[in-house]
């Protein structure tokens, strides 16, 4: 049984929250690391 299924989300809010929960800490970590990397080019 093969049924192609649309990927339209029933809850965009849930998607935004899920990505924010992982994206915000990751962005913070990358930012903190880049401030250290700045010493390389300073």
């Amino acid at each position, binding site marked *: *049984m*093969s*049924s*192609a*299924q*649309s*990927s*339209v*989300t*029933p*809850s965009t809010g*849930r*998607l935004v929250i*899920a*990505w924010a*929960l*992982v*994206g915000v*800490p*990751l962005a*913070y*970590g*990358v930012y*903190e*690391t*880049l401030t*250290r*990397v*700045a*010493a*390389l*080019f300073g």
Partner: protein
Amino acid sequence: MGWLDRERTIAPPGFNRWLVPPAALAVHLCIGQAYATSVYKTALVKHFGASLTEIGVIFSVAIVMLGLSAAIMGTWVDRNGPRKAMFTSAAFWASGFLIGSLGIFSHQLWLVYLGYGVVGGIGLGIGYISPVSTLIKWFPDRPGLATGMAIMGFGGGALIASPVSTALLKMYDPNSGAKGWVASGESVGKLFLTLAVVYLAYMMFGAFTIKVPSEGWKPAGFDPAKVKAASLVTTDNVSARNAVKTRQFWLVWIALFCNVTAGIGILEQAAPMIQDFFRQPDGTSLASAAVAAGFVGLLSIGNMSGRFAWSATSDVTGRKRIYMVYLGVGAVLYTVLALAGSTSTVLYVALAFVIISFYGGGFATAPAYLRDLFGTFQVGAIHGRLLTAWSAAGIAGPLIVNAFLDAQGKPGALNAASYQPALLTMVGLLVIGFVANLLVTPVDARFHEPRPGRVRSEEPALEG
């Protein structure tokens, strides 16, 4: 605990598959903390009155347990589904921190070995492989992109854990403002307790967000025939038990082992290496400690971004070709680094960045490579067995580099030339990996699982 079973995690119609990568990332970002142990290493040395080596064993035990648990538990993970696997991984990972903190508070180093090393290491292994086969099933059109996103989290976890742990240690230790401050053991114990709670919550979010696609699901507009058009991609399935009997599994194992060994060679020595490469005749280095720390940070970014970017690229180029780049171009870049790396800081930094991005890319592309060769049936379990290459490389990489450097002189007196034997050995390893990857061909049909209406007469023997 039936609510953790695979059957209870089947996605309802209309479920958005883009909810699966953040669920996977939630787990990988947490277990990626394993690469941020240097933050409290000195504090533990002081607290236990132990040597650096004795404290380093905590991390080594955790990585060995990662490889072993991934290899042993892979089939269990595939059978029970991602929710139960993530839940179990969270329980082990958080318990590891709790037992570790008990060891710190009670001055019992063996409890830290048992907690963070053994118990936490099991959480690492199960957590690492838990979302892989689910992601591949949700993204049959872009498996490299999907696994790259998750495995990128393992590289990114340290970027978060490192500054957060430093801030927490300062908050927990009243003497943090003192000159030459080293965090107290008590503050590290409190850090472990905090991490246990936070990681448990995050990983539970992942466990209860992830879902598996229903039988026969495929993304809108996806045509499996187009994927099959690539010669190495199979629509058949090979069990984990049979996969390890094939030549292809061991060729990919060798390719991954060589790629990881070469990458670890640079990662392990990153900070002293850049200072040694630019050491002047009077013994001083053009690269200060701050520059070295910045270099380590840049490599972390390269490691993380390579996991995503190269793995996603492999969906276009094919897995075998991208591994030829990791290993072939990697060998050339390593040679330039060994012979001309000391001529310019920019050249040195650029070469190391690309080499480390290949290291990360090798990890992230491996599950999709296995999917291409062995199908989706037990790809998580096969991936678990492949990760023993990582454990072996974790021992071989530092051994090779340290043995060569020990023969060249004492730390602080080394220069660029001192690194040439070690780096050129890594070039040799990369060439071996390149040849192994070149020899990868489609898996013989006798290893395929029988399709409905087709019966296999006997179990296939080990491939010669």
